[in-house]
């Protein structure tokens, strides 16, 4: 059976618009597949955020130890992965790595690519936050016998992280939306599922369902970011 549903030629302009973009039959036919894509996107996004932030923070902490060769490597990592488009990294990981015996699934390739890019940005943002904490804070803590690492953990990072929440929230959102890039390696995330459903049915409704799925996913995230900003702000 041909799944394409043609617009009946007798319809008014408004009805045609509704038929093409807000078609309940089409939405009913594809919502389940899109819901599965929603789960994949959510899962991918969550794992990217956790990996990216943890690695980024670890790199910033390592950089604060002031070991020159290590810092050189961290800076090179951050510069390279901030400069490369995530799509290029996904394509290299998915299509080129099998040749060096390191084949990976579409999910893994997308996860790894976005995590590396987020880690690179997060490292720079955390590092900027660490630098923005006044030197006197280090001196006060060190003068009471705290080690460099203890000072970082209890005095500097709690202040640095507060300052980094707004830029970090924006960066996390931008990179998490990059999960849609998984569609180029046939990952069944929201955009891929809804755009194939859209071509299959010749109707734009699945794309709108997909857009709603993105809103459901990201709006609470925006609110969460705003809540964190007010929660962690303190008056100076």
């Amino acid at each position: 059976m041909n799944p394409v549903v043609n617009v009946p030629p007798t319809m008014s302009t408004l009805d045609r618009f509704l038929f093409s973009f807000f078609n309940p039959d089409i939405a009913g036919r594809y919502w389940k597949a899109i819901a599965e894509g929603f789960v994949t996107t959510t899962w991918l996004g969550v794992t990217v955020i956790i990996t990216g932030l943890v690695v980024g923070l670890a790199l910033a902490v390592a950089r604060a130890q002031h070991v020159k060769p290590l810092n050189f490597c961290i800076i090179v990592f951050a510069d390279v992965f901030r400069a490369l488009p995530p799509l290029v990294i996904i394509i290299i990981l998915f299509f080129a790595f099998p040749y060096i015996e390191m084949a990976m699934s579409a999910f893994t390739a997308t996860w790894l690519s976005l995590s590396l890019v987020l880690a690179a940005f997060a490292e720079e943002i955390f590092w900027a936050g660490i630098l923005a904490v006044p030197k006197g804070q280090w001196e006060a803590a060190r003068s009471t016998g705290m080690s460099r690492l203890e000072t970082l953990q209890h005095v500097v990072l709690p202040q640095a992280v507060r300052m980094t929440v707004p830029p970090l929230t924006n960066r996390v959102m931008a990179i998490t939306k990059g999960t849609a890039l998984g569609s180029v390696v046939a990952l069944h995330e929201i955009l891929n599922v809804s755009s194939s459903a859209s071509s299959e049915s010749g109707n734009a409704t699945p794309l709108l369902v997909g857009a709603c799925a993105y809103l459901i996913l990201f709006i609470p995230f925006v609110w969460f970011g705003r809540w964190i900003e007010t929660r962690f702000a303190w008056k100076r």
Partner: protein
Amino acid sequence: MKQDLPPILELKGLVKSFGALQVLKGIDFSVQPGELAFIIGPSGSGKSTLLRCCNRLEEPDGGSVTVDGIDITAPGVDINRLRQKIGMVFQSFNLYPHMTALGNVTLALRKVQGMDKATADAKGRAALERVGLTDKADAYPNQLSGGQQQRVGIARSLALEPLIVLFDEPTSALDPELVGGVLKVMRELRESGMTMVVVSHEMAFARAAADRVVFMDQGQIVEQGPPEEVFGNPKHARLREFLATLADRH
């Protein structure tokens, strides 16, 4: 002050440069238990650097710094352990803004000395009581006046039961009406027998409370002695000039 005991702090031939600029040119200086040594001198004379070498916030380039008989510049010393015995109070207070006064005072007790919260809090409250801030334990630094913040800074040093406290221009960032409260706490501390080294411009305090006044200029100790001699009968021309510029200002 106990003259017959070994010094708490002893600097020998201390040398420190920043780039090509030599800021300390071989300092010999010692402080007896219970003594309040008061360092004066024009800006750029090396007073603060001298103080900061005493707990190695600045690494000396040469010479030795001995605290309670231990050379803290020797390779392999546990500087973090030694620093707990050397309190430091800063010009800009440097309180941790994300913690309450009590949190500021107890942080090192809990995280460095591994004290449980109840014990650390009891010690912290006792330290806050010594600086007259019992009722401000739960206040954040931004809720305190500059003078109160500086007293929390002093309490943060005292909580660790130091052998000596270094004061780096403790009242220079304060509004004039808040200076008195901080000086009062320092005076009480001195009367309780604490060994103190103070870099400051509060000459009236030096006259009243110091055992010894040390005049530094261009990286050297030029003259030192009891306050009445240093202020009343200065021997070196540079000290006389310095005191004259201060007198002009007032």
